[in-house]
């Protein structure tokens, strides 16, 4: 079995296929996305939309973009879906091992350093733009991480294709003295603005409120965008037998043999002998 890390075995073959044979490469799933983070008096609120696209087609209308790094450190991801999933997953496990070996609860700053070092090593080829937020014993923190490995620490952040729409709402509504309800409503409005105005974002709104030793995840807090209003009432009914079949093969599951009272029978046989 192979060792850890990425495997570059097929790289040469793929280059030749694309250049010489004009092979049409399957599309990667991107999370066009609007992701937002806001710091309030007691903690951090993270928000994200739920659309994953594959070119112009919506691959997943309800995906989860807010990933768990640790119990009170969560991360929203934009960019290539596989990259955000696997990067946050890898850093989550590294952080868990680190916190077990040091015997201390993890800090947001540690997750930040792990993520930025990982992404910088790949010079932007791992396309993951992240909004990292959490509360540790030093207080609430919010950071943005770009695919090339640069980071910023700010009181409110928006990233993804819908970041301009979301930032407009944040700039208008943000105040440093916000409470939890105000922050939640601001993030909600920012994500909604991204969903409505940006083509790469859509679906429902997910929210994650992190305070000291408490985390609340509101999955699909707003689903007004995903209910189809004008749906045909009567479903199409296909009568049984409407499709012409050439051959039919049925493979039945082998029933498990039930062994009952095995030991008792064995002892009885011995006694008889």
């Amino acid at each position: 079995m192979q060792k850890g890390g990425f495997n570059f075995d097929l790289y040469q073959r793929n280059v030749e296929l694309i250049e010489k044979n004009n092979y049409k490469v399957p599309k990667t799933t991107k999370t066009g996305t609007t992701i937002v983070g806001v710091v309030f008096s007691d903690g951090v609120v993270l928000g994200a939309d739920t659309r994953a696209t594959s070119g112009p087609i919506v691959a997943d209308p309800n995906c989860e973009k807010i990933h768990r790094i640790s119990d009170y450190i969560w991360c929203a991801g934009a960019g290539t879906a596989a990259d955000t999933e696997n990067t946050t997953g890898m850093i989550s496990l590294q952080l868990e091992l680190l916190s077990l070996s040091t015997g201390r609860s993890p800090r947001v700053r540690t997750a930040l350093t792990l993520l930025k070092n990982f992404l910088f090593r790949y010079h932007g080829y791992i396309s993951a733009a992240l909004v990292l937020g959490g509360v540790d014993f030093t207080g609430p923190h919010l950071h943005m991480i770009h695919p090339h490995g640069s980071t910023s620490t700010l009181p409110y952040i928006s990233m993804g294709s819908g970041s301009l729409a979301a930032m407009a709402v944040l700039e208008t509504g943000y105040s440093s003295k916000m409470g939890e309800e105000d922050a939640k409503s601001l993030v909600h409005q920012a994500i909604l603005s991204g969903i409505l105005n940006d083509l790469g974002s859509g679906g429902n709104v997910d929210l994650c409120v992190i305070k000291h030793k408490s985390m609340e995840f509101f999955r699909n807090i707003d689903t007004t965008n995903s209910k189809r209003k004008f749906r045909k009432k009567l479903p199409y009914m296909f009568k049984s037998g409407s499709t012409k079949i050439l051959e039919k093969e049925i493979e039945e599951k082998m029933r498990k043999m039930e062994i009952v009272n095995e030991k008792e029978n064995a002892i009885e046989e011995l006694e008889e002998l």
Partner: protein
Amino acid sequence: MAGKNCVAIAGDTRFGVRNQTVALDSNRIFKINNRTLFGMTGLNTDILTLRESFKFQMNLYNLEEEREISPKTFAHNVAQTLYSKRFGPYFITPIIAGLEGEDYTPFLCATDLIGAMEFPKSFVVAGTGEESLMGVCETFYKENMEPDELFEVVSQCLLAAVDRDALSGWGSVVHVLTKDGITTKRLRTRKD
């Protein structure tokens, strides 16, 4: 596509090199165990390579764990295998369909070529005709279909989409997986 305690996978059986048809009986849907079906589209050599690779991994899993793999675990395994080739990927789009747990809840998973998973409740599509397939499945899909109706819906969706795609066709196969076993049916399609 998922139904009530059953799932179905359907695919065509044409193997071609751009516009030339090379084979009419290439099977791209494989049975992993009694609860999991696995289908792939894309570059044929990668389909064959991954088929062997997963067969090897599943045999090892069965020997070590002394039980059958669940569809969800297998889906994660597929995603991890694909992501390890992130820079230099396999050119395939896999679909995993199975029945999860003691309740036989339907499980569907589709990933892209580098392993980004999605778990829809209704249907997953892949291949050269995927855009047509998505449209027709979105129209005909109903919740909680019994196996017979699920078979009809899946077949009609496949046949409709395949007729609109020049690179698909020349025979098709539909597998319906329920807790009692797998029913495989071959359909008559247009041979052009």
